[in-house]
């Protein structure tokens, strides 16, 4: 990567990614704040979460691929990261599953408070 031409190209791509990241930041904030991204009823909105995380993932991949030049690396690092990500996901997902397993649902307090639903606040 040492020759000058390559380096200029790299610089350009770094700058482009920098700008893209700024743009995406604006998008993220807009998703959070602007009503056009509020799909649901008034009040906080679950859809924001999905969109916001999607944008964040795109940003993260840009950083990882270009800034951290993963796109130039050999397979070894990919293998290591693949397993890491796999285990991290496993930790998150399996832990959650263990908690939302149906056996526990019965004790969920929601059921015991359902009674007042019929009344208007």
């Amino acid at each position: 990567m040492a020759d000058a031409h390559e380096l200029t190209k790299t610089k350009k791509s770094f700058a482009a990614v920098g700008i893209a990241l700024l743009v995406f930041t604006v998008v993220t904030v807009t998703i959070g704040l602007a009503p056009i991204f509020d799909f649901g009823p008034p009040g906080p909105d679950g859809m924001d979460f999905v969109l916001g995380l999607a944008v964040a993932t795109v940003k993260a991949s840009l950083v990882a691929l270009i800034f951290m030049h993963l796109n130039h690396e050999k397979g070894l690092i990919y293998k290591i990261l693949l397993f890491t990500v796999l285990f991290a996901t496993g930790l998150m997902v399996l832990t959650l599953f263990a908690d939302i397993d149906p056996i526990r649902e019965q004790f969920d307090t929601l059921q015991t408070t359902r009674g007042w639903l019929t009344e208007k606040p």
Partner: protein
Amino acid sequence: MSAATAHEHAEAHGGHDDHHEHHDPFWKKYIFSTDHKVIGIQYGFTSLVFLAFGFFLMMVMRWSIAYPDRAVPLLADWPWFQAWLDDGGKVTGDLYNMFGAMHGTIMVFLGIVPLAFGAFGNYVTPLQIGAPDMAFPRLNMASYWLYLLGGALMFVSFFLPSGAAKAGWTNYSPLATTTDLHYGDLFWTGQTQWLVAMALLISSSLLGAVNFICTIINLRCKGMTWMRLPFFVWAMLVTGFLLLLAFPPLEVAAIMQLMDRLAGTSFFVPSGLNVSGMAFDAAGGGSPLLYQHLFWFLAHPEVYVLILPAIAIVAEIIPCNTRKPLWGYKTMVYAVMVLGFLAFIVWAHHMYITGMGPAISTFFQTTTVLISVPSVILITSLLISMWGGSIRFNTPMLFATAFIPMFGIGGLTGLPLAFSLPDLHLHDTYYVIGHFHYVVAPGTIFALFAGIYHWYPKITGRMMSSKLGHLHFWPSLIFMNGIFSPMFFQGMAGFHRRAFDGGKAYEQISQQIFAEPNTFFANIAEMLHVIDADAPLRMIDLNLVTSGSAWLLAVFQVPFIINLFLSVFIGKKVSSDNPWNATTLEWATPTPPPHGNFAKEPVAYRGPYEYSVPGAPRDFTPQFETDPSLTAGSEHDSEPSEEIILSAH
């Protein structure tokens, strides 16, 4: 870098370093050393001291179990014990809890792992792959010092007003969050210091893991292809990954628990928690289960960290002493990788009774059963490796041989625990204690002993006495089993673990009869004065068998300690650099290996276990030996080319 220049380079530097070394002051050479061998020895000594200390704690506990209403001998007048013994000099529940928690913690995190991974890993791995040192020598040193600091904190915490941690080595919340909260200075309580010390130990392990993996991947010498790595190195690689990826979640748990204790957060504090009848002053909304998940996400891989190096040591010793290649080397390599992978997705088998539903617990039962397959492959390969060999039963081999059935018992008794149904019955009983101790005590510890006897000649240039070795081995084997086998029966009978009176309070359980009067076991027990003549042997009487064995086990470690220290001075000098006629690269170094290790750049010409190769001049063909048939004609004047090295076998 061409081969020739590299060689010259190494030589030039080796020479320079030799010269340099004589000028290194003592502290630099032995205390703040960056040499992986010195660090390995430091790790070794420190961890042996901690093992002895953990053993001492356990002996006090065993007294309380065996004689719940008698004063502890010898200790009652020590000033420290005044705060923790009762008026009659008996062990209190608090003291038992403290010693129990610290026994577990010290044995696992300060004893076995540092000895297996820190000491053996450090000393042997770079030698076996032909590297001059670890990839990051200074990180290596930092790793040792962090470990020492963490260990020192653990030790110091005994002397705080609150005593050391008391909530088990698992440190479950909310128990661990709420104990000792009344002290004015929360930071200096044992429970908090446990977390701080663990954070240090975790950092130490992380540095170590990065270093090991890097070293193994990047510093293999010429010709040391992946499938020529000794099995020990493979095990270290997998262990490194286990530490690297499993420890951070525990660090998270430790940080969160630290926040819970010091900053009053409620990560693990559920809503509406009452402690000693009072509403606990915290916002609530947290989950104790989260702690258990984070903890066991580490702690299951951790048990493989405890056992893989042990298997690996045995895998080095067995081929060497049977003079046969390791059977199924490749299978073992793949097995250990699969095992490393599966280790990350079985953790919740420690949590069957937390109310997981059938779906998720089926998942964990399945993976747990799956993981037993590679474990069995490893052990079976070792067993088959012995088949038909002309076995040399020297001390390391004795321990290595005993390892197999001992680990086998530990492993097989684990199978019932893999299924949620039997686990509901066995969870938290002495059965579990028996199970994992068979794995780590007569299992791992025996393997570690084997390793010490095996590599001692390389480290010191002298052999350990084999008479003392036998005096160490046979009683240890007997008493280890004396300690742990009764636990299975007690556990199945319902003896709960962590009971400081050894189950005395639960008469229905403890008075059950293990053997009728005048039957075989009752007779033996009578002979040992455990029971009176013609009395039945009750479950609770087994406590005496266990405790007595434990104390006797301690006595028979004395020959080992003597052997370890005296042999440095009076042991038989080794006659060559390779006294066992072994094949791996560590035996190619001068004895003891100097800083920088190899006198001449090592090259691996063949696989690691070429014993009794048909047609070879001797019954072993070391990895570092050039193959005359391949380099014929050019033997001494030039380096073989890379192609030749790689194509040898």
